[in-house]
């Protein structure tokens, strides 16, 4: 059963076409790489698949819970990492224990406002937030850009766990080399078109 199906998804900004009609399917148990140069439309496609951005045309059907890590930090800088996790857990109607568990699992600092955390820690917090609803689909936009090698390894473990549990992971990156042996298939996006 297809977990996510996008059909004819298009996005324009005025007269500029950021994304030409695109079809994407995510099947259970796969890690899909979305590659392409900067400005190819990867972030736009992921935001549309995540439901954060409305497509100008086309449809996205996803029957499962979706986690999304945007390229730029997306949490409240004046709240601590734990408070951010608790807030999004409440909004996702997930148990508070799940937030605490993720906080410990990602070894996030306590007592500091998120704005005071390092870039790497903020990226880990974003990843933790994307997991509070225990998603079966994980959409990651350049997730490793600020992570150290250990954290990168942990990220791929998480991706593998989601895949092994019958979920699907879509990773957008322009670091081809990092995907070697990790992605089951690759989609390439150039100038808003899948090639």
């Amino acid at each position, binding site marked *: 059963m297809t977990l996510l199906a996008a059909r004819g998804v298009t996005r324009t900004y005025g007269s500029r076409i950021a994304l030409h009609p695109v079809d994407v399917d995510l099947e259970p148990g796969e890690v899909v790489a979305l590659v392409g140069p900067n400005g190819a439309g990867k972030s736009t496609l992921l935001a549309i698949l*995540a*439901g954060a951005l409305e497509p100008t045309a086309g449809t996205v059907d996803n029957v499962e819970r979706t986690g*999304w890590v945007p390229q730029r930090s997306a949490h*409240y800088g*004046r709240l601590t990492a734990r408070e951010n996790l608790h807030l999004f857990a409440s909004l996702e109607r997930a148990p508070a224990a799940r937030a605490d568990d993720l906080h410990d699992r990602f070894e996030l600092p306590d007592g500091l406002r998120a704005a005071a955390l390092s870039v790497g820690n903020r990226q880990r917090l974003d990843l933790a937030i994307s997991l509070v609803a225990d998603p079966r689909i994980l959409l990651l936009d350049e997730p490793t850009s600020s992570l150290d090698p250990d954290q990168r390894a942990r990220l791929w473990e998480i991706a593998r766990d989601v895949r092994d549990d019958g979920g699907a992971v879509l990773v957008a990156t322009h670091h081809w080399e990092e995907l070697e042996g990790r992605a089951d298939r690759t989609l390439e996006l150039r100038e808003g078109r899948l090639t």
Partner: protein
Amino acid sequence: MTAVWLVLRKDVRILLRTPALLGVLLFYPLVIAALLGLVAGYASSKPRVGFVDLDGLPPKLVVGNHTFNVQHTIDEVARNVTLVRMSEDEGRRELDDGKVVAVITVPPGFVATLQQMVQSPTLQVAVTRGGTAPRVRQQVDALVYTLNRKLQRAYVDANLTYVRLLLHGGSGKFVGRDFDLLGLDRTAKLLTQLPQEERTQRIEHFVHDARLALAQTDDALRATATPIKLVEQPAHGRTAALSAEVEGYALALTISFLGLVLAAGALAGERDENVLGRLSRGLVSPGRLVAAKVALAAVVSTVLGFGVALAFAVATVVGHAPGGEPWGRLPLLLVALALTGAALGAVGSLVGAVAREARTASLVAVLVVLPIVFLGLIPAEVFTAAGWVSDALPFAHGVRLFAATLFDFHPWGAVVREAAWLVGIGLVFGLAATAAVRPLRG
């Protein structure tokens, strides 16, 4: 509802972590309110009026038996305006330029007509055009009224002199002519020396009645000159600084800044933090997000507005200034504050939704709040269009709601009317803000 509550709780938590911002948002409008109060209270209270003397008023002027020091009299009657002596040409020019709001001209022959006391002399007045004209005309009317009151005594005394001449006889002068009058007293004496027949007795009766009647002329003439006397009673009410108007404006101004700037900054902040995309993924709809910001503005406005109202209430107790309902109506005031804060929050949400960044939103909010406040300060009778625009915004309704809540003897009519306006304005701006949030997703 849960989503609104969660976002609201988050916003309050963030706000409490920036007490400096909260302090500025509270004290800045209070300072503005105080400055506006001073400007409104004193700047327009003494308008500049030109005084053109074409008759060459002498330093001293004798009217009847009274001598007037002209400059002293002018200073006394012109306490509510700043009277500036100028030539006829200067007066015309300054009125055209708007440097003076009116020009009073003493025409040639004024003093002569006044001293003859037969006809009323005329003063000419030219008043500026525009919205302030009625008020200026009132002030000039008041000036002439005060001058008339001063002259009244001289006129009455002069008339009484003639009455006394009629009664007692003697020499007098009228319109430049000297005359000698027999008088009723001496007439009565002469009548007693005449043969007492019926015609003589009838004349004696008439003289007797006329003497009695003229003896009452003094009081009657003074009563005719002043049919109603105004006696000022000692008052113990609120001073101008603690008046209903000042308290209403202070509350409305404070929460206008608070509500508008907070809601605008908080909504734009969601975008700054890049969280808007996360929230719009079915977690918090645009409508609920706007509702949370409206609720934030309502909560903060209620808490801080209540603090300001308490400060006013304590000041009335300490200053022994009774009046209004500083304590009893506080529960109703809470509702009024929440409603006004919510309506302002809706306006602020629209600003926050349209502006791209929190900084821009805050700046735009401050720029927006000032005209909203100033429009609300312009009396509708002075500039009708300003009244219409102000009616479509929350500030003026907030002022009227607070004044009715705290001071009206029967507040409910005004409270219900203004509350309905605020709910309507809040809904319109809230819906507009919700629509404006939508295209900003992501």
